């Protein structure tokens, strides 16, 4: 893992290593992936750490381009909330989606991805409906969507306020052993 690379200083690499779940080599690999999206924008030696790649480029990555939630993912992890990501955001996103991230961390971000269609820190019925439509490509009938939403809120809502808070969501995720393996992008 030598000091043969000239992109990051040792301290920067250390910082990234401690702040994400990646090793040095993986961080460098990710940097090259990030740069490949727009080589003319991203300098090779990280002198401009505030370069932001627009959402269209991020959304065109092969790992994300067919994911129906890619816009929400980019919005959740980007600093400006519009999906335009700096390298920091990029690394953060894939770190949370990697297989070493703990369940609670993933649950937090998953909640944000599914919840904030209308910016209220809760998963309410309309959020659920949008999620379901994305999951099934709009092929469920309205009745079916309504029934499923009711059932989901029934099952998961513990404080009975008609919508899911982060707590409810996390309690439900604890019971889903496959969450860790589905909320995972291999890069």
């Amino acid at each position, binding site marked *: 893992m030598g000091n043969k690379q000239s992109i990051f200083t040792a301290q920067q690499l250390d910082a990234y290593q401690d702040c994400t779940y990646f*090793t040095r080599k993986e961080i460098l690999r990710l940097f090259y992936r990030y740069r490949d999206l727009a080589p003319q924008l991203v300098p090779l030696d990280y002198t401009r750490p505030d370069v932001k790649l627009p959402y269209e480029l991020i959304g065109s990555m092969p790992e994300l381009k067919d*994911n129906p939630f890619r816009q929400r993912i980019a919005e959740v992890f980007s600093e400006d909330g519009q999906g335009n990501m700096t390298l920091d955001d990029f690394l953060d996103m894939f770190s949370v989606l990697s297989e070493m991230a703990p369940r609670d961390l993933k649950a937090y971000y998953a909640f944000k991805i599914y919840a904030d269609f209308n910016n209220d820190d809760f998963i309410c019925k309309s959020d659920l409906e949008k*999620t379901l439509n994305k999951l099934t490509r709009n092929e469920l009938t309205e009745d*079916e969507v309504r029934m499923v939403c009711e059932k989901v809120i029934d099952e998961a809502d513990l404080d009975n306020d008609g919508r899911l808070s*982060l707590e409810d969501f996390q309690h439900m995720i604890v019971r889903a052993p496959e*969450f860790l393996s589905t909320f995972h992008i291999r890069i």
Partner: protein
Amino acid sequence: MDRAAGQGPTETGGPAAVTGNGRLGDRRPSSRLSSQSPPQLNWGSALTGDDEDDGPPQDLRSRPLPMSQRRALWQEQQKKVPVVSKGESWRRKNAKLLREGKEALKEILYFFSPWRKALQLIGGESWTRSAVFLFAMRSVGKKRTFVLLIAGFVLVPSIVFRGSEGTGFPNLTVLLECMNYNPNPQGLVPFYTYILDVLLGTGFVELSYLFYGFYENTVVEDRNFYNIPLAYLLTAAFYFAFCLICIVVRLGYAARVAVATGGQTGGEYSMIAFAGWDYGSLGDKETKLKQKNILYRLQVDLEEERLKNQAAALTLKQKVFLYSLRVLLLFLALGLIAAALFGIFQATQFSQKMSGREGIVGLLIQYLPSIVITAGNFVVPLLCDQIALLERYSPSVTIILALMRAVVLRLVGLGVLLFTLWTQVTCGGNPEEDDCRLCQYNYKLYQCWETRVGQEMYKLTVFDLLIAVATLVLVEFPRRMVVDHSSNALVQKLGRQEFVIPSNVLVLVYGQTVVWTGALFCPLLPLINTVKFIILFYCKKITLFHNCRPALRTFRSTTSTFFFLVVLLFGWGLATTVMVYSVTAIHPSMSCGPFRFFDNMWLIVPATLYSLSDTSRDFLFFIGSQAFSIPLFILLCVVLCYFIALASVYGKTVRLLRTQLKL
């Protein structure tokens, strides 16, 4: 800022406490803070960055902060020069070295793992992330162990000591007729005999280390005392015990998950909605399939709900009619299975009686049991599926019923085959029959019956492989060609081959059972099976990607793992019964094999025991005596009761907590 005492981040990473009120870390400048106290996340140690035992790394990266904030925190932590003791800094340095070592190892494994690329592709096609491939790999691992064992303990000594004096216990009353065994073909043979020999396990293959008959009963008496028959028997016994332990351990893990999550009651819909989407899916087609899959699952669940409501609303007359129809159809299904089993019985008898024929006809006759078994396992489930349409159970019950029928057919079919073989070898268990009187086994048909049994298992394995490859080449490729290029509506409705996971796993379980049964008689069969699995793995991979579409009906992976492990356990039980019976009740062949002068294979153990020194003998007798085994048995019962009580307490606690949460 709250600092819950003792709530620092744990080894597993990630904060655990979620208390009542607070706010989410706001990342987006546009998120409004809701006035109704959204939950707070208590991330443990505060921003002052105290030194935990795990060090800062675990602390920082499991916090849901924007990266820039994390890096700022990291800078602050670095600035502080913590006053640490020598021991502390030495530990920190070690931890860092360990981490770097692990990274290096990961990099190496990244390049050297042979399954990694395949797994990466398959994992991306997430609907195949299933028991099939994991199962195959695990079986390969188990078999490699056995092969190494066999090689070390039996094969190598056999090769080395070949030709030494066999010091069995020559029974002077052994008749020369029983010793007549010469499978070598006489005179000139046509060249294709060699191919036939490989396919059937006869001829030059028969007289090789592949089969039981070739091993000698050498007992090397000089300073390196090595008793090959004993090694043979004990290796086989150890292999069975090892497999049992592996299965039970994995069953334990699966059962633990089932108890901890309290089964699948409640939460199916929310599970599908929030944990159903696999973020690792790649590709447009794959995504569409996954979406269709989720759609199907939701529709099935809603349908089940509707059926349940409907069933509760049936009148008495309708109920009686439905139940009687179901009983009738059950008998019909059982009748179909019984017919298939009878067919296997007849085929085996016929094939064994006509075992002398040559050429292609002879080949077909030899493979007749395998052909009948495979055909039965293909046709009967198809028919049972049609029956299931009439039975009108809910979808999940239908799937489980279909699987159970398939399992029964496979395992009992194998059992019938073995039973037929054994009746023929022992003349129906009656040693006074004409054919068996001389040598205690049917020496007219079977000069070396263990090799013959081994050959049957060998043929089953080889046929399995041939059929899999043939199906791939002759059925699935053409089907895909036809579907892709023809625009006929009927053909399009038929569609590409569905990759049905449960039946593929059943095939693997069946293959494993065959291997276990044959392990005693054909010691290198596990090696052949390993090679077969590897070939099958790559074949199935090709099929998966090019020819098939995923099955719409999925099977929940946690319950399915448990189910398949239980089936595997049944297969193991069958194989063990067979082995125990062969070892203890049937007279080994007198013309071949390491046990040729014993009355049954088990007798080598007492014989060896008596030749041990006094103390070891007394010790072993003590272990086998009642004074030891009864207290041991009682102790095991107590431990078992303890675990059952523990499991039931946990189950009750889970249920209690769940009701409390609901309220």
